[in-house]
């Protein structure tokens, strides 16, 4: 029980511990700074208080002895009148009594009386006038000291002298200067931490950029040694990835190009087949081959695609794909639906996005017999687009695997509906390259739902 509480307490403290490197470093520095400043201020203040106190006591000793000297010089009878004429100083009181006024048990601590006595010696008093006895009471911080002088002839002079409270700092500007100094040091630490942790953020941003675009500009290789080394290593890695992607793209284009010529020849040859049925089958097979080659090429190319991003109207893009689907498959036209804003502008690569959405909508129509496209307005900087169908859906254990290249849901392996197994991977690559994603799920009412997110 106690243990869990302790852990809860710890986790509470840990929850205040910031997560970013910069904030952690800054917090550590600021805590250290506060500690040093606090300790320094305390030491300074204590020292100052003691010094001030000592000088007050010294002053009291001299003033008290001065009063005594003036009074003792007069006769016993004249003393009350003499006492009245003496300027006692602010806050001090004096009285004459016959008996010792103080309880010896309450005597003042030694260091205090020592200071006062020592300073009394600075006021010379002729020998016969020396007090027969001096007693004192008062604790250092209670605001006043009481001093009793026993006259050499008879009676006591009782003085009550105020001890002004000591101020830890003398001038009001001291505290202001101190605060300013602390703020300046904090600002300096903030700047230094920002500067030192900046490269980490730059590196993270560069890695993020590289993930989206292998041709992103390299990192500047300057700054402190460690940072420069990290930048060099990162740039080397980026260029290796770039070369790898280029090799792959080149290979795919070469294959695609080499296949293009024989497929074109075959298509032309097929036109000379006189048997209509045979010719049509021949051409259908060639079209399928063509589609597969195109899809493979598209899959290989889209990461290195140089299509520039432009401002485009996503609503009209989605509508256009639905319209084209309706034109190509008039029988499915009444099962195509668009629900969303009339216009929604975002930045993207229009040919790539059209291909990606066409793949999703094409799948919905092919496997689900319908496609309801819904455009959800932007929230948290992202727009969501869902594509729903009324088909059998996708087995739950394959919802993620369908995004693997060339993977096909088992039932669709036969080529009647099969496709290339590249539509979804291509779509996902394209959406991810835009900083979004696509996932697949099954609807409670039946049918599949593809959910796309894109930065608004």
């Amino acid at each position, binding site marked *: 029980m106690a243990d869990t509480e302790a852990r809860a307490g710890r986790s509470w403290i840990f929850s205040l511990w910031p997560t970013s490197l910069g904030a952690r470093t800054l917090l550590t520095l600021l805590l250290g700074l506060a500690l040093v400043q606090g300790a320094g201020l305390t030491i300074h203040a204590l020292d100052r208080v003691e010094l001030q106190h000592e000088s007050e006591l010294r002053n009291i000793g001299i003033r008290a002895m001065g009063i005594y000297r003036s009074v003792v010089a007069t006769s016993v009878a004249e003393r009350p009148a003499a006492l009245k004429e003496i300027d006692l100083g602010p806050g001090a009181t004096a009285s004459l009594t016959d008996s010792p006024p103080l309880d010896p048990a309450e005597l003042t601590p030694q260091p205090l009386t020592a200071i006062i006595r020592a300073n009394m010696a600075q006021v010379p008093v002729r020998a016969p006038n020396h007090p027969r006895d001096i007693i004192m009471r008062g604790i250092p911080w209670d605001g006043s000291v009481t001093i009793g002088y026993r006259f050499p002839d008879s009676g006591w002079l009782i003085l009550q002298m105020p001890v002004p409270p000591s101020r830890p700092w003398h001038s009001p500007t001291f505290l202001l200067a101190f605060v300013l100094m602390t703020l300046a040091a904090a600002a300096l630490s903030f700047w230094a931490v920002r500067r030192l942790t900046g490269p980490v953020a730059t590196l993270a941003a560069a890695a993020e950029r590289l993930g989206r675009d292998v041709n992103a500009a390299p990192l500047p290789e300057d700054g402190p040694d460690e940072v420069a080394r990290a930048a060099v290593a990162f740039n080397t890695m980026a260029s290796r990835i770039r070369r790898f992607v280029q090799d792959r793209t080149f290979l795919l284009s070469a294959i695609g190009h080499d296949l293009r010529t024989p497929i074109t020849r075959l298509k032309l040859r097929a036109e*000379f087949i006189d048997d209509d049925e045979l010719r049509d089958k021949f051409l259908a097979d060639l079209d399928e081959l063509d589609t597969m080659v195109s899809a493979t090429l598209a899959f290989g190319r889209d990461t290195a695609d140089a299509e520039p991003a432009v401002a485009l109207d996503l609503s009209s893009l989605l509508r256009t794909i639905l319209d084209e689907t309706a034109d190509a498959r008039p029988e499915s036209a009444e099962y195509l639906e668009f629900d969303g804003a009339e216009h929604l502008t975002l930045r993207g690569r229009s040919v790539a996005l059209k291909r990606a959405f066409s793949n999703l909508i094409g799948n919905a129509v092919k496997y689900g017999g319908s496609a309801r496209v819904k455009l959800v307005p932007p929230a948290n900087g992202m727009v969501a687009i869902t594509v729903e169908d009324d088909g059998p859906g996708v087995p739950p254990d394959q919802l993620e695997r369908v995004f693997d290249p060339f993977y096909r849901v088992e039932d669709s392996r036969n080529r009647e509906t099969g496709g290339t197994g590249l539509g979804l991977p291509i779509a996902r690559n394209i959406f991810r390259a835009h900083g979004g994603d696509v996932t697949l799920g099954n609807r409670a009412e039946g049918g599949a739902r593809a959910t796309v997110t894109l930065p608004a």
Partner: protein
Amino acid sequence: MPHILVIDDDREIRDLLARFLERNRFRVTAVRDGREARRAWPNGNYQLVVLDLMLPGEGGLEVARWLRSQGDIPIVMLTAMGEETDRIIGLELGADDYVPKPFNPRELLARIRAVLRRTTERTEKKLEPAAKSVRFNGWILEPARRRLLNPDAVEVALTGGEYDLLVALVERANRVLTRDMLLDLLRGRQAGPFDRAIDVAISRLRRKLEDDGRHAQLIKTVRGGGYVLAAEIERT
């Protein structure tokens, strides 16, 4: 019988294409590159050129440039599959159409016929040089990229049919086009059942052009079954 010059470096494709086109009542001369094309040029009197962009040596774009310098002969380009840049450069150079390789012969045939039909009409009036962009009512049409930008420079997607329809309307702005004329201009481009689709495509186009169907200002309906694009056209 229209005479077609086929320029392709693959001998088999060249021969098969020549035979295929001849079977479809064209006269065909087939050559392998720009050099042979120049040699075959003077005694040809060609009506159209089918040009492969991926030629060895000189390259298809160079040949296209040379053909353009020879006069206003329509060019149908055979481009590499999905090579956007080739296609854009080709169209900017003034190719009349493009067909990605590997093409379906019958589709190529349809494109050739459509281009010939369009150019016959074109030669009647004075041909204008291919515009890089056409502006109307703040909207911008970029023929080379086959794209439409709204007044805020945002790309608005169009289907192939919508695009061709819009081009037909813009090219003949402020002239009434009957449904039959539109059908005639667009046939060959569009495989689908385009007859009934003109009205559908018009209403889709209006929606994308933010032109209210009931009180259309841009694409106006003309009584008696026609449409007119009412706008100042600015070519650059």
